[in-house]
């Protein structure tokens, strides 16, 4: 039971990150491998704000704003000049951006893991904590679900949301219908990066240390989650993320714990063998 709750809360972190991957893929048709490192930047933003003895709420706002801007800047400087270039070139650029952010963090903060600070904590709920349910896990789970619901509503019910859907369906047609594709892609990056900032915040609630490589493993796992769920599909990213989180936690609690990483990625292979487009992916027929 406790493993399940821990797993669901880890899963909602993965789901938030996976949403960023899948939205950017669905709309810009590119894999933004720098996404994991935006989480790391968000985590450091929280650490720095707190060290200026500001309140955690201010820290969260600073982190979300900074990450949103960072996502838009990355898109503008690194990816926009390559629009229309081969997907491989864009992919390599994304990896380059990822290394750049990691290197920058190492230069500024050093390579070692640093504790966030004592003001960064949630109130204890003794009745639950006694049974091993951490407040952080509960908050992550609840907030994660709220964020996902809001995002789904945003895409379904607003004009920008419909425009995003249109661009992902057919970029050419959307342009003809008067949708400003560049603007939509920028908005997508902004939302994706804001989600990454939230993911970074939840991550720090559970593991209160910031380090330059913090985003790497969650990033890759969330990417796997997005692919398992069917890349480009928003509900798919949520399902994939939560599935991987639960699997990881149960694996760690079982005698298989040394093989956790192997199990996570084998799951990807198995699911892709059975359903090549992922759990909730759309089947697109190749025209011959």
């Amino acid at each position, binding site marked *: 039971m406790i493993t399940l709750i*821990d797993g669901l809360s880890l899963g909602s972190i993965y789901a938030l990150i996976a949403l960023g991957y899948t939205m950017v893929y669905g709309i810009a048709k590119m894999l933004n491998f720098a996404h994991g490192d935006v989480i790391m930047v968000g985590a450091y933003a929280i650490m720095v704000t707190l060290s200026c003895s500001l309140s955690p709420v201010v820290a969260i706002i600073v982190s979300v704003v900074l990450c949103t801007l960072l996502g838009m800047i990355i898109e503008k400087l690194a990816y926009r000049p390559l629009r229309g270039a081969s997907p491989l070139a864009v992919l390599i650029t994304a990896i380059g951006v990822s290394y750049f952010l990691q290197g920058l963090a190492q230069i500024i903060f050093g390579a070692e893991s640093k504790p966030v600070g*004592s003001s960064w904590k949630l109130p204890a709920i*003794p009745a639950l904590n006694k049974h091993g349910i951490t407040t*952080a896990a509960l908050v992550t789970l609840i907030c994660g679900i709220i964020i996902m619901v809001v995002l789904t509503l945003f895409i379904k019910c607003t004009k920008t949301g419909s425009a995003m859907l249109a661009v992902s369906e057919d970029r050419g047609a959307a342009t003809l219908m008067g949708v400003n594709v560049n603007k939509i892609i920028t908005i997508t990056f902004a939302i994706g990066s804001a989600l990454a900032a939230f993911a970074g915040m939840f991550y720090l609630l559970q593991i209160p*240390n910031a380090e330059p490589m913090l985003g790497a*493993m969650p990033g890759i796992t969330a990417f796997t989650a997005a692919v398992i769920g069917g890349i480009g599909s928003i509900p798919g990213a949520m399902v994939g993320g939560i599935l991987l989180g639960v699997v990881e936690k149960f694996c*760690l609690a079982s005698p298989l714990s040394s093989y956790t990483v192997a199990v996570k990625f084998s799951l990807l292979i198995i699911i892709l063998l059975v359903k090549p487009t992922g759990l909730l992916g759309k089947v697109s027929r190749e025209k011959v």
Partner: protein
Amino acid sequence: MSKKIIALVMAMLMLVAVFASCTNSSGYTSKNTEYFIGCTGPLTGDASSYGISVQNGAALAIEEINADGGLNGVKFKFDIKDDQAAADKASAAYDQLFEAGMQISIGSVTSGSCEAFAAKAKADNLFLMTPSASADICIAEPNAFRVCFGDPDQGILAADELVENFENIGAIYDKSDTYSTGIYEAFAARMAELNVEFKTESFDAENKKDFSTQVEALKDCDVIFLPFYYTEAGLVAKTAVAKGCDAVLFGCDGLDGVADQVDETVTNTIKYITPFDVNSKEEKVAAFVNAYTEKYGSAPDQFAADGYDAVMVIYEAMKKANVNDVTIAPDALCDIVKSTILADGFVYEGVTGSMTWDESGAATKTPIIIELGK
């Protein structure tokens, strides 16, 4: 009694004289005007903090010895070469030092390097007293000694201590790390000897951030043994708080530094075994801490204390044996220092405790158990 001492000193002097006569012809040390103690350690790279600490500690010891007039009017010189914690660099650095006239050494700072250093030193019969290389292989040769605890020693000490004071014992260790597994295996073996059951959880290099699963499994223990480094121990402590687990957290010398990783939210008692307590009230330790802080601007860590002690042991041994030939060859000096250190009644009172040595090269000393914040 006094006759015996005189006889011993005479014997030593004769020994020195005999060896001195043959060293004059031997090359590298013949031009020495100071006793030359060599060392290699990581001064750059990932492990550089260890090498720099040892360098500072050793340099402070040399400064104190020379300020005191050296040995029979002859001063000491210390040189540490950067080996970046790599065995091949340590080997190359050994040759450089040896050709520059090194007569005795404190080996290498890290285990891998020290193994290579010891292999070279064996061929030349050069004495080495490593401050900090804790793997047993480093002192396998008869000319190699160490100041620090060996990895297995700490596991045995911890098992004895925990069994004596606690009922319900749990342990977490890092499967992918030699330091952690070395201690853990000795701990588990000792627990089996004592016939005490305990619960074990583990992690590896891929999963060393999230400890909720391990803490969850050991939540009901009175004490959790943590034989690994301070970063992970800090995370375990915070997870324990979040999970409402109030077990005592007990670690080894790897926990030296955990104070910076935890804050006032951590309510669990944290204890660890260490040979060196920077807050000790003992006169000798306090004097060392003050001198070090004054010279380098920060408090010494365990490696600095080990480096200081390693140099001081060599000095004390040479003083006791009354070495008075500045050009003495490494081979001759090694035999003198070794027999002095192994002789009955040689006890060195250092900043990392009072220690004696046996043929194995391992130091016997009493560990201190520090409670954080106390």
